[in-house]
């Protein structure tokens, strides 16, 4: 089924090594991976397996030690810092576990700060931001608050709005519910599901099975390789079969 889809990101022979003085640690090596357009890809793995490192390498946020990444037909591994910045603002949206909203700005301003990068039509950007805030259930009064004045869930949903304001090719989410309680997590995941259903490609790192169920494809990273690749199909809330399939996959992976 995957073979029918358009490849959005293609990583070839990827290697990532961290050096500290004379010691080095290889996170992954000879890694090949294709990410498809429209997929909600979940990256799982044990702590320290390199799942976040892999995701950030694919997004251009971090540079691999060697290998190539072709993203939307562009080899981003050849880009310099500023070229990467321009590429990221058009193609990537990021959602972080720590949320990382700008503290001295309201939620709306956080979103418009990102929006200003890709459009000079301020009215249009504000209109889209309002629609997205509505989509993630953040009322106008909350939009004007600082991130320190709202709940973690609201802040994270605002973070998602910021990530998608420029209609990126992919939203990269690094354990977006890691710091949230279950109610807030649910609300945030619902937003991701909504976005996916609207055709948004998403890559999400998580170690939470419930979160992983939201994706249609689950990759398992182990020993510096994509150890397993599981196709779950699109998320349906009441589908127990998907959960069973994921359980089996994870057991097989040694989770």
């Amino acid at each position, binding site marked *: 089924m995957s073979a029918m889809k358009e490849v959005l990101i293609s990583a070839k022979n990827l290697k990532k090594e961290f050096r500290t003085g004379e010691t080095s640690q290889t996170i992954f090596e000879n890694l090949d991976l294709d990410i498809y357009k429209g997929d909600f890809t979940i990256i799982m793995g044990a702590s320290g397996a390199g799942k*976040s490192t892999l995701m*950030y390498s694919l997004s251009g*946020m*971090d540079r691999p030690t060697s290998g190539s990444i072709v993203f939307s037909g562009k080899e981003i591994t050849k880009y310099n*810092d*500023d070229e990467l*910045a*321009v590429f*990221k*603002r*058009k193609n*990537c949206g*990021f959602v*972080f*576990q*720590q949320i*990382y*909203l*700008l*503290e*001295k*700005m*309201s939620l*709306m*301003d956080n979103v*418009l*700060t*990102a*929006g*200003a*990068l890709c459009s*000079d039509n*301020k009215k249009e*950007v*504000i209109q889209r*931001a309002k629609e997205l805030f509505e989509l993630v259930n953040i009322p106008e009064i909350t939009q*004007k608050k*600082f991130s*320190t004045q709202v709940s973690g869930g609201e802040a994270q949903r605002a973070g998602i709005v*910021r990530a998608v304001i*420029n209609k990126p090719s992919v939203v990269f989410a*690094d354990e977006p519910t890691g710091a949230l309680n279950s109610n807030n997590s649910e609300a945030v995941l619902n937003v991701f599901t909504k976005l996916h259903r609207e055709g948004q490609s998403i890559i999400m790192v998580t170690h939470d099975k419930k979160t992983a169920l939201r994706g249609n494809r689950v990759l398992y990273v182990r020993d510096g390789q994509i150890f397993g690749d599981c196709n779950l199909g699109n998320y349906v809330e009441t589908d127990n079969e998907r959960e069973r399939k994921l359980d089996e996959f994870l057991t097989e992976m040694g989770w």
Partner: protein
Amino acid sequence: MKKIKSQLIYNLKKDKGSYISFGIVVLITAIMLNLAFVLLFQVDKAYDDKFNELNTAAINVTVPKLQNTDALLNDIKSLNGVDDAECREAVFAEAVVKDFRATDFSMNTLFYNKDESRNMNKLDIKEEKTGMTENSIYLPLYVASFGEFGLNDEIVYEIGDTKHTFKVSGIVEEMQYGNYGKGLMGAYLPKEVYEKFSDEYSEQTVVEYSIMTNGDINALQNDISDLLEEKGITMLTSCDRISTKDTRTMVCNLIILVLSAFAIIILFVSVFLCKFRISNSIEEDMVNMGVLKALGYTGNMIIAGVVLPYLMVTVFASLLGVAVSYAVLPGLGELLTLQAGFSFGLDFDIKGLICVVAILAVIVLFFTYTAAKRIRKLQPINAIRGNSEGKSAKKNYFPLDETKGKTKLLLVMKQTFSNGKQNILLFGVSFVLTILVAFASTMFYNVIIEPDNFISTLSEEMPQIIVSPVEQYEDVISDELKSNSEIKSVLKYTVGTVNIDDMPVTVFACEDFSRVSNDLCYLGENPDEKNEIALGSAFEEKYKIGDRIEIQNGDIPCSYEVTGFVQSVNYQGNVCEFSLDGYEALNSEKLVPTLYVYLNNASDTEKIIDEIEQSYSDKIVSTMNYQKMTETTQEMYSGITSVIVVVIFILTILIVLFVLYIVIKTLLVQRKQELGIYKAIGYSNKQLMVQMIGSFLPSSVVAVLLSSVLGLIYVPQINQLIFQTIGAMKNNMEVSFAFLMIFAFVQITANLIISILLTKPIKKISAYALIKEG
């Protein structure tokens, strides 16, 4: 102490760059303060020591030998307050010293017999050539060093139309006269040379009375004046310890004033810097402080850990600054020796060192403690959670969805308003430093670009040529010169002396003061009629405009109405102005005024002098190239001013550099996460650099421009203050708006370049590192 040692070392290591910058600003302050203190503590003492060593009289007056009586010495000795007195003969002459610093200097000179025994006003021979000649002369240190005369050099004194050429056989230090500002100099001739010389000028021989007193000098001077008046004796010259000291130490006092003002301004900058840094480091280290408190450290221990590094840096930088200042002192000492007319060594001064270190340490301690004391109120748990008033935003400035304008511009404005503290700091520092720059640029404009403004403030009338005609030819020459197309105007002008209130006062008499090039009158009007007089600033307290004043010259009494007040830096306000008729009324003989010649083109001076000398060889006594003298004075001041301007400008840029360094570094540390977020959402390095520079540069640009514009108001006041201290009640210094703007532009450009260089580390902030660290 042991308990806070590790904290102290941690703080010092963590913020090395900021401490170094702060230390350099303190070092500059310490250099200036120590220079000021050493001058303050030592020059005055050196002056008094030398004064006492040479047993210099408190008052010296001269009277014509023809009027002197044998009993006068005893009469003076019997005056109340006189401890001792002695008298000696001298020749008093209005002389022109030729080739004095490559020009001709007009100087009232008293020629003494060097070999006559003296108990008072002793001479300290600094250099001497063995073997006398028939024209040997010993010059005072001031004439030798300032006039650029060395041993064996020839010096020509022109008295009337006679030129006397002497050979410099020695250089002496004396404390009786001093420098040109006093308007009176001494010259010392060996016995044989003096006798020959005094024979030639027997009519100009005077008797000098040197009077010692420990009492009130002014009161005694008045008593002496009364005594001489009673006896019908004219006092030709008078100088006293106070006014001589004021004149000789004027430049030194000015330097102390300027150095202290600079030091205060830079000190202001440094305390603001440390206060700013501490406030921010409390924000940055909030969690650590909370942990320390949770571990049981007291608030005072943590405060000590924050304050002590600044105190240590201050003490170290102060000591270093004091040491560095001693490298500058010999040069400064030489410059002052030249101006003060006596040599003195500036030695290590423990008092200065203690004052500098104590003042800086106390001020820094006070400001750092004030900034750090809120640590005491920190609740450990709140601190550990990073909750502080400063960290959380209070107001969302310029909401992007509600405010009209480009989002990127609004982002810059948001940052500007969100970071109020550093913008206030930058505004304050830039404003204050621009005052220095505005002052320096105005000095530069008036000394280098429009030198007449400066020179005319310090001088009296400034023609290009002064012609001394033979009696009866003044009108003929004047009329003929006026018809010369290269000559702009000719003015009959005379400089002389009268006694006012029994004190000798320099006279400026002119045929028409409305035509002078340098109007000295700062209050009221110049005299126009025969019975009018304008008095020098020294008389301003005693007389007011409209008062009548009786002046007696020998047997001729005249009454004048005071029309105004005039300034004179060179004679400390002891001057007056008459119309030519008015001055002539005081003289028994017909006055032969000199002719002040003003040219259309000053560069023609030499040529016109030649023409005048050729055309009127038998009708003139002498000509003087006054233009050259003006230029020499101007050159001297240009050099000093250029150095001052360059030093001020470099200091300003250096301080701006250090302030910006600390502010930008603080911003980079504080906003590291924010910048990482911006990068993560796609902002480029260039965008972030522009955004950051845009957030703080406007405050310094506005401050520089505002301060420069306000310079039109405050610079004249600063100039007024400074020039008044040296007796120039009205200064001709112009404030050029264009020049202020040029310097402001240079300053802004320098700020911009420094900002760009300092914000480059933004490139090193990686969004990924932020996520990894987070």
